[in-house]
Every structure is written in C-alpha cells, then in structure tokens.
C-alpha cells in the first residue's frame, strides 16, 4: 500500500521538545509498534502522521507523496484512539457504516464491507445493538471496525487497549493480532505496554526523549538492545546494570582489554572493542538470564559462578520466582524458572552465574559495545549478547 517516511521531523510545544529530528521509515504493509515511556513523543509522532498536529520542521511522506501539509481527511488514513469513539443512539452496524456514506460506494458494497469487518472482529453478536449496551472493549472493537472498513492505506492505533479492563484487554489483543495478520495496510501502533508491542508488532520502534532509539523485530530488540535505555525499558523487570572498569590487555597480543569483576568467577578478556571506547563500561544482563543455584549443590558449578547471597524471593507471573541477590557490594534482581526457584532457600548463600553469551556491554554514552567476552585464557571468544 504505502510506507510512511518521516524526515527530520521536529515538534516543539512551547519550551518542550516532543520530537527531536526524527528520521524514520515505517515499513509498507507491516505492523510497527511505537513503544516508549509516557512523554517520549510517540503519540505526537503519530498525530503528525495523521495530520492532527503540524510539525515544527521536517516532512512526512506516504509512499512518494509528500503529505506534510495535507489535512487529515485527504490523507486516506484510519485512526483509533485511546478512548473508544463511538456514536450514541445508533447501532453498531450504523456506526461502522457512517464514514462509508461519504464515499462513492453502492449500498451493497457498503453492507458487504460492514459485514466483512464485523466478521473479522467477531462483532457478529452485537451488530444490531445500540452502542450504549456495549462494554468499553466491544466499543473499541467498533471503533477499530469503523477505521478498517474504509480500507485506508494506513491505519494508526493510539494506545487502543489502555482503557479497557484486564479481561477485555486480552481478548482485544488477540483480536488485533488476528486482524493485523490479515490486513495489508501499513499499521502504526502506539503503546507503552511492552507485552502488547511484543505480541502485535512485526517491528518495534523504541522511542525515548523525542527520538527513535532503536527499531528491530521484537525478539532482536529484546536480545540485543542498542542502548541502556532499551535494556532497561524492555523486560519485566528490566536489565541489571553494573559499572566496571576495563583493565589493560592481557598481553597475549590479541589486543582488547580485560574485565575483572566480583560478578565473574574468573577474569574476562574483552575483544573487538571499537576504537576509542572508554575504560569505563556498564555490564548489563536480563534478570531472567541470571543463573542461580543453591550453594550446597555445588556440582556442575560453572567456572564463572560466584558466591552470592539471596536476599529475598517472591513468586511472580507463571510461578516464576523473582529474586533479590547480592554479590559483593552489588545488589540486583534475577528471575528463575519455578523448579529452580522452589529449590532455593528463602534466603542465604547461593551460587550466581552470569552466562557470557547473555551479557551486554554498554559504553559511557549508553550505547551498546559490540565486544566479545571470553574467560581469560580460554579459546574461542563468545560474542556478548548473542543468544
């Protein structure tokens, strides 16, 4: 249909910079989630794409067409807002049909389109009901159906399931997944909920402070965050971070640097550091990747395992256990499988290991360093954060 490109997009509200020189392309016929914390500019970006806000600078293109100065109605888009926008006093079917009436469509074609989207969203049971009889989740479905029925080339979703209750949320998420899989339009979906983004997106554009920090497929984004922000924002809880100082190379002539930390049972060799990388780095690991074992059962203890202390243990979603750990003077979190968690004492000494292929290194500017970590003196290097 059409991809969306924004070039050098800037938006200022009085003294706040909502968008800071964003250049980005939303891939044609794909679902791109704009994910980020509140106030990161994701909604502003979407509203500029819709034409509801004028950018302070920069351009918006749909395919080859420059649309920066077109009013919303000439952009051929559909949009769904946070609050279900439905018209009272008319039935669900009439709600969906309403915008179609201003287009040159035959009555049969209108009816057919309504029927299609009703079927697509599973609204069959409520077609003839009045809007006031529906709950918020169903109303939102109606709003989505209305946007889809027009068959615009681009559909924008602005946190469409934030304001429905938990049960309906799941149901809507499933309906959206089904819907977006079938639609061929370019879809932009704004959300601050990472599980939503992970479920629905072909690719996630992570936004922070008015910029797009990273855009990648959900899994890649999770496994290889481009900066500390990505590591912290994605995941529940986010990455654990530790500051570390790199030592000079180990003199084997293979270059790089060494990393000695109480978190690792042995000194590490850091290879492939980009030139100019500082000596101070941040070591990051996702809590679910930290390996924890009872101190007593020391069999199968990895060479990098260190002794630590379990501070507290609590049960979390899916019977996983959330652990508070301390190694040396550093405290951090870990998340372990039910079986592992049950075997652990409520508190006390444990063995902690950070698998090298899960560890990411970040530079002082917060960007990820493409470095490899290997136990000093070992053979083949392991690329940091490849899983």
């Amino acid at each position, binding site marked *: 249909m059409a991809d969306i490109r924004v070039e050098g997009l800037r938006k200022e509200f009085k003294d706040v910079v909502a968008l800071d020189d964003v250049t980005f392309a939303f891939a044609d016929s794909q679902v791109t989630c704009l994910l980020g914390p509140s106030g990161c500019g994701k909604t502003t970006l979407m509203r500029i794409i819709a034409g509801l806000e004028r950018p302070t600078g920069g351009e918006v293109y749909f395919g080859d067409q420059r649309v920066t100065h077109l009013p919303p109605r000439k952009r051929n888009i559909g949009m769904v807002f946070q609050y279900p*926008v439905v018209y*009272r006093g008319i039935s669900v079917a009439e709600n969906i049909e309403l*915008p179609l009436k201003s*287009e040159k469509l035959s009555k049969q074609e209108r009816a057919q389109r309504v029927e299609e989207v009703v079927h697509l969203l599973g609204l069959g049971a409520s077609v003839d009901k009045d809007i006031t009889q529906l709950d918020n989740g169903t109303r939102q479905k109606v709003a989505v159906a209305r946007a889809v029925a*027009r068959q615009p080339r681009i559909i924008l979703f602005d946190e469409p399931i934030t304001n429905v209750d938990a049960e309906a949320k799941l149901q809507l998420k499933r309906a959206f997944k089904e819907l977006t899989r079938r639609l061929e339009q370019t879809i932009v979906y704004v959300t601050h909920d990472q599980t939503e983004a992970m479920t629905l997106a072909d690719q996630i554009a992570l936004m922070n402070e008015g910029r797009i920090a990273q855009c990648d497929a959900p899994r890649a984004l999770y496994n290889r965050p481009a900066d500390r922000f990505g590591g912290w924002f994605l995941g529940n809880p986010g990455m654990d971070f530790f500051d570390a100082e790199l030592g000079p190379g180990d003199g084997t002539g293979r270059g790089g640097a060494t990393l000695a930390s109480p978190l690792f049972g042995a000194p590490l060799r850091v290879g492939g550091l980009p030139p100019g990388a500082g000596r101070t780095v941040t070591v990051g690991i996702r809590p679910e990747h930290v390996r924890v074992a009872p101190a007593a059962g020391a069999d199968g203890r990895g060479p990098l395992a260190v002794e630590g202390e379990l501070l507290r243990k609590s049960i979390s979603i899916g019977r996983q256990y959330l652990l508070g750990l301390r190694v040396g003077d550093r405290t951090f979190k870990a998340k372990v499988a039910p079986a592992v968690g049950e075997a652990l004492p409520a508190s006390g000494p444990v063995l902690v290991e950070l698998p090298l292929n899960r560890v990411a290194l970040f530079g002082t500017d917060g960007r990820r360093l493409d470095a490899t970590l290997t136990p000093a003196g070992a053979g083949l290097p392991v690329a940091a954060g490849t899983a």
Partner: protein
Amino acid sequence: MATSWRQHLYHLLLWLIALAFFAPVLWIFLGAFKTAGQLVSWPPRWVTFSPTFDNIREVFARENFWSYFRMSFVLSIGSVLIALVVSFLAAYCFSRYKPTGTNFLMFLLLSVRMVPAPAVVVPVFLMYTAFGWARTFTGMLLFYVMFSIPFSLWILKGFLDGVSLRYDETALVNGGSRLHVIFRVVLPQVKPGLVAAAIFNLIFVWNEFLFNYVLGGEATMIPVLLAVGVNSGGSVDWSFIASLSLIYTLPPIIAIFLFQKYLLVGMTFGTVRGEV
C-alpha cells in the same frame, strides 16, 4: 425512626415555603375567573365565588390580541433560534480552538447579563435611536438575540467541553470536513444542551418586559396591549391583568413542565460529564 420524623417535618417545611411563594400566583390565577367585584372584595374570597370565563373571553375578543400574542411567540422563538446558531458556533470555537483570552471573553459575555436591566436600558435606547433601530421589529429581535447569546454560550460550551476532542479527530481522519464534524458529529451529542439553552432563553425572552416597552414600542405591540388594557375608565382593570397573566404564564409553565430535566442540566452548565 427519628430520621423519618425529621424528614417529614422537613418536607412539610418545604411545602409551606413553596405554597407561600405560589400563593400570589394562585391569587392572580383565581382572579382571572372572578368578577371585578369579587376580585377586590374584602375579606378576600379564595374559594367562595362562582367561576366565570367572561374575563378570558373578553381578553381573547380584544382587538389585535391574537396578533400581539403571535408576536410574543415570533420574537421569543425567532431570537432564541438565531442565538442558538450563533452561540453554538461560538462555543465550538471557544471549546476547540481556545483563542487567546477565551476565559476573559466568556466572563465578559456573561457579565452583560449580570448588569441589571434598568441600568442599561437608557444607553441601549440611545444607541438604538441613534442607529434608527428603535421601534423596529428587526431591532427588537436582534436585541433579544444579544440577550440570549451569553447564557446559551455558557451552557453550550460546557456541553462541548464534555464531548471528547477525539470525536472531532476521528471524523477528520475518517474523511469528514470541519463542517461535517461540527454539525454531524458534535451537534447530535450536545442536543440536551441545545434544548436546555433554548428553554432557558425562551423563558427569559418571554418574560422580558422593560426593553420591549422602551425599545419596541408599537413595532412589537405587546406593551401596547398592556398599556391600553390596564387603564379602563380611570381605574386599574384587575380582571384584565389577571386573565392576561394567566394566558401569558401558561406557555412557560408548560414548557418548564415538559423540559424540566433539561433545565437541570442547563443549570449545571452541562459540566458534570466524564470523558468519553
């Protein structure tokens, strides 16, 4: 038990107050059905009289009564309709575009209605005379339009603020023009506000006498009816006043009865609504 006993007392009190306030109205209504002698007799006759419809029949039979009565309707309904169109569009602008000084302008408009009428009747009369609008039907109609706009604007802005901006935006994105948004999307949602504003101002305009008397003169004829009718044969014609009061009070009473729930939302300026 104590609460129920108190509640009864409270209700009794409310009834007494209501009756005390209604008594003069009742007196004038009853007067419409009495002969001139019974009306002024002492001690006052509340029930001991044989009702007669002669007074009312006589008012109806008066020369030009029906054209005067029609003029009342034309002026009230006409001016309120014009005022509604103007204030709905103005309220939409204030609510959606929030021009600089919106709050001050809104206050200024309402303050027009805070000034007591006798304080402004002379300046307005001078202005109308200077413009040549005095004693014209259009001038009178426009005066009542101006008279109705502030309150309508306040009510409608309250209602429009209660309609989420997302409605406008959804319609715009879905291919609607601004006019489509205003009249097809937003307007249906503030219908209760429009009804409330209409009823309020119909009653205000219907009841207005002073400006009509000073500005309208023969052009609108209503005060003439009173002026001619009140004095008959050197004394005040109380029967006439009573019958005319009855006839002129009935339309607003019926309107209030039919639209009381809208009057209530009108008094809260429609502001008690959540985001949709």
